């Protein structure tokens, strides 16, 4: 005797957090049942494997039905089919949009295109995150990106408003969108030691200071792209390295060997042309901080240098980023 049909529908939709996690992690029903059995739930509750199978199927079915709504979280709040308490709605959304560190480091800065999606197989193998979960995370990135890409206003704010995420998660997504849009390659070997947290920190500073939104809060794409004028202006700073006199003067002012070369911005690796030598020489973090402070402050004393404001906008952010990235 087999059950052809087996359902449970509550007036309040039952959400089992453990099963939700297994579902999000991309486990099949049978794998999930196996994992639940190993968790000792049968002993705790006196249930049978059959009961667990039925329960897991049921939750998976519910999550599958909810998934369509989770793609546009405001819909989850307004739909009438599933009666879910607000705190549970928030939990469903937050967990659905959460992503794995290992996964995000693989995808960060890549174009969120079909091409990348094809690589998810490899990413799954490499990171140990199931392909299903990789797909969900990738699709989340892509969906958020598409919605906020062309939008006015604060990037993190837009994300929070349209996806009802927590502050923290919305800012993380802002970083993902920022990197994806600017295609900063974060996958390079030299950058491998950086955590998503490091990169998200830098992205946030760059969004705050180096985008058009930093100057004018009414522009399109204000947080997504880097400020083109600013990038253009940065060329002016080349004078610091190009002009021998000025360079010498700066050098003497800083009283330190200038090991970093100031390249034209926005290549991240530029930063490393600074960090790497310091790291190889094992500078203590404090020394690096002192050096950078001195380095940026002393420019103000350069008489022939006219771009003080520009220098600050550039250097304040860069200094914070460098310090954050300066670790093992």
């Amino acid at each position, binding site marked *: 005797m*087999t*059950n052809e049909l*087996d359902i*449970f*529908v509550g007036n309040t939709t039952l959400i089992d957090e453990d099963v939700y996690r297994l579902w999000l992690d991309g486990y099949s029903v049978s794998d999930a049942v196996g994992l639940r059995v190993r968790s000792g739930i049968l002993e705790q509750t006196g249930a049978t494997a059959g009961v667990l199978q039925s329960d897991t199927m*049921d939750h998976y079915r519910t999550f599958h*039905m909810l998934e369509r709504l989770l793609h546009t979280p405001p819909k989850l709040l307004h739909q*009438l089919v599933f009666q879910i308490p607000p*705190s549970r709605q928030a939990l469903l959304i937050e967990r659905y949009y959460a992503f794995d560190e290992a996964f995000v480091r693989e995808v960060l800065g890549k174009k969120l295109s079909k091409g990348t999606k094809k690589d998810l197989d490899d990413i799954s193998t490499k990171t140990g995150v199931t392909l299903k979960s990789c797909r969900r995370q990738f699709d989340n990135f892509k969906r958020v990106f598409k919605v906020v890409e062309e939008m006015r206003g604060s990037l993190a704010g837009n994300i929070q408003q349209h996806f009802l995420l927590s502050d923290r998660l919305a800012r993380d997504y802002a970083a993902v969108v920022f990197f994806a849009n600017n295609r900063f390659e974060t996958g390079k070997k030299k950058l491998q030691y950086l955590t998503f947290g490091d990169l998200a920190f830098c992205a946030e500073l760059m969004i705050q200071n180096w985008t058009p939104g930093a100057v004018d809060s009414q522009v399109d794409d204000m947080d997504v792209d880097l400020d083109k004028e600013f990038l253009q202006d940065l060329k002016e700073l080349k004078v610091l390295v190009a002009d021998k006199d000025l360079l010498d003067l700066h050098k003497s002012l800083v009283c330190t060997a200038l090991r970093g070369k100031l390249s034209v911005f926005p290549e991240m690796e530029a930063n490393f042309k600074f960090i790497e030598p310091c790291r190889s020489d094992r500078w203590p973090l404090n020394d690096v901080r002192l050096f950078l402070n001195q380095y940026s402050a002393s420019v103000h004393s350069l008489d022939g240098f006219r771009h003080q404001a520009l220098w600050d906008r550039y250097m304040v952010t860069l200094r914070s980023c460098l310090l954050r990235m300066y670790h093992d």
Partner: protein
Amino acid sequence: MPGKLKVKIVAGRHLPVMDRASDLTDAFVEVKFGNTTFKTDVYHKSLNPQWNSEWFKFEVDDEDLQDEPLQITVLDHDTYSANDAIGKVYIDIDPLLYSEAATVISGWFPIYDTIHGIRGEINVVVKVDLFNDLNRFRQSSCGVKFFCTTSIPKCYRAVIIHGFVEELVVNEDPEYQWIDRIRTPRASNEARQRLISLMSGELQRKIGLKVLEMRGNAVVGYLQCFDLEGESGLVVRAIGTACTLDKLSSTAAFLPACNSPSKEMKEIPFNEDPNPNTHSSGPSTPLKNQTYSFSPSKSYSRQSSSSDTDLSLTPKTGMGSGSAGKEGGPFKALLRQQTQSALEQREFPFFTLTAFPPGFLVHVGGVVSARSVKLLDRIHNPDEPETRDAWWAEIRQEIKSHAKALGCHAVVGYSESTSICEEVCILSASGTAAVLNPRFLQDGTVEGCLEQRQEENLPPGCGFCHIPYDELNMPFPAHLTYCYSCRKQKVPDVLFTTIDLPTDATVVGKGCLIQARLCRLKKKAQAEANATAISNLLPFMEYEVHTQLMNKLKLKGMNALFGLRIQITVGENMLMGLASATGVYLTALPTPGGIQIAGKTPNDGSYEQHISHMQKKINDTIAKNKELYEINPPEIPEEIIGSPIPEPRQRSRLLRSQSESSDEVIELDLSHGKKDAFVLEIDDTDAMEDVHSLLTDVPPPSGFYSCNTEIMPGINNWTSEIQMFTSVRVSRLSNINLTNQTLNKNFNDLCENLLKSLYFKLRSMIPCCLCHVNFTVSLPEDELIQITVTAVAITFDKHQAVQTTKTHVEKSLQRASADNEELLQFPLELCTDSLASHPFSPAKEHLESASSNSGIPAAQRAVSVEKASPLTEGHFRQRSAPACANSTVGVVKMTPLSFIPGAKITKYLGIINMFFIRETTSLREEGGVSGFLHAFIAEVFAMVRAHVAALGGNAVVSYIMKQCVFMENPNKNQAQCLINVSGDAVIFVRESELEIISAQQPIASCQPACSGGEIAT
């Protein structure tokens, strides 16, 4: 022109994309009532259209208002081809037709399509202006209130309980009309939905007319059912109890009564009415004829009523003095006469109520039931209701005569059901034979009838157990003892009933759900042969179901069953029997003996050993159960009670009969001859299996209790955490070597596993009780068994529970306190009480206007009202936390119970009675049968909630899923399902909030829900 219906279409949201090119929709709305249709403008290129239409006005008869549903169709405009339908909303406007219910229907309704399910929502406002119509001969019955609740609704008082009303209407099933071959499935489904909606309206109106004729103003315990007969038609039938109700919370109505309770207390109970026969509570026959003339369906019952005379309830001589003690004798006789005169005027003294005002129920005789097998293809005139009317009249007569045989005048907890397979139909009726207090049944003596009860001086909580029949002239062999409570009157050893446990009954320990499950194979046959085969099987099924119930009851160490419901389902090649009831230990009844196993082959040593092993297991189980359910009755010395009256023992007082189309009535003696009831004889492997199956029922895991009645005896400290659910399982039997034994085991496992799954799913609610567990079995196909369960899980406070078990007897009176049962018990006192503690009427006004907002403070409410408008998506800016706290969808609770724990129902908004069909031709794509049905049931819940919310309510009580007919054809990738649900829409206020309101009136933060609130602002 007695009424004007006004409809406004405000907006839509989340509409489906109808134009692939633009990914948008050009939506407009058709509003149809009767034959009049209005249209809104087309709102181009939007999934969230803002029609903001004018008020569409329909001028209609109130008869139409009652019958017709308001039909709202959302369409996609297409310049070049036919407009595509997006979906429909049917709105029953009945709640707007009586003054005490809702005044406006307003809110977001899911747009429903029978093929695609819910496709977005539409915001609609509906109002009705009724003109007073004094036409005596009117065909409408506007103003009669309907309640599904099978007790007197919480904010009302029963002035008179008039009695049984029933009606039945028949129509051709659109699914079987010739046109169905050429129309689309959608058109066919919609025709069916609309027809059933119309028929329900008509049925309700006709029942309302009968109520008015009886001078009642309400129907309580209204139960409406559909019989999908197939070729021979579609039957909609309903039964209910006509009452005259008085609203309790209205101060004006109450004050006089409150001021003069003492005066009324002094009234003499029995001679208040010098001339009972002139009472007009039941209409005289000519009047009946006159008013029913539009309803041809009635002719049969009227005929039978004339033949009633010989069956009329004449008391048996010597009955009173014989069975009752010294004090009880004359009282009983007098009571009998009173009741009789009140009931005699009624064709069927039946009551669909399962709980009663205190004092109403005097004695309970036992369960009475009748079944009849009919052939649908033998109906001479299938389009007319006469034949079905005659069938039911016949069954009701049987019930009535069974009750009479038990010395009872009335039947309470009465219900009717059918099971149909192809052309065979089993009609069933059952109830509890009872003796009632006449004062509720008559006019004129109403005031004070509740107080008089206090003077009767009946021993508390045992009166209903005392036998109503004559001890010397018993209808069946019974084992009687003196009542263990009052020790004056006789009681049976076990009591089976279909009603809820009376609130004043004293019990020991807790109750539990008891089920008997049984299958019987039957040969496939045609017509007469089939009907005969079924008729022959029925008595054996009843017998075995009954035996199982009795054994399981003994195994639990209990002595009474409440809420007994026996369902017999007919399939192509088998019959299924499923009985559910709640077992309890009544202190008034004797302690049940154990179960003794006797072997037939005494010389076999190993066999003996086996028997004694089994016996030990049984004894252990009984001991364990006694501990589990805390059954430790106080020891009463034998001499006080007196020795048992030496009568042959019997199993119970269940009187039943079967009849088949030949109208042959077979009486069955369920007393098992002269055998001792407690001895189980094991003479073959079958019997062995039976004993085994007795022991396979696993008790619920610790922390769980279950019952099928309203409240669990022994638990009284409910928290407000409730979860109503429906669970459906369809199981395929492997058709190899099907025997009764394997079938029984399969069926038993199916039920047990389902229960286990429920316990597991709801484990987070422990300590918890599943209440009103309602199982239904159907056999959709040859090898398929479908089980549908609806119940509510309620968490209770464990610490208090421990305390109460110690003082169960004292506490049992308060058992129902959670649901304000005191209202019934001491209506007048409570009234004064409520006046003092919360200034009710002013607060109430406020509550009602604010009711439609969730427990959000007033300041935020403005926001949520705004949000309810379709602009919604733009409104999420600047939220500091993503907690979704200001969700616009209010919570609507659903429960099969008549109350909400920890809350007070302040208003009944009207009956919810909805019928839906869902069909798919892409079953696999929708997640197979489970995905399909899961989504459908979720959608049905959503539509019920939306309607309740639009009425301004925040809960549905007495919710029931009456039908869930599921058919699949996986080979064609198709499935279809029909669901019928009903309940009472209400506004409730948390008791804790009530206190706040009385303290500071302006902040009416009642729990409730939803978008109806826009109107209040």
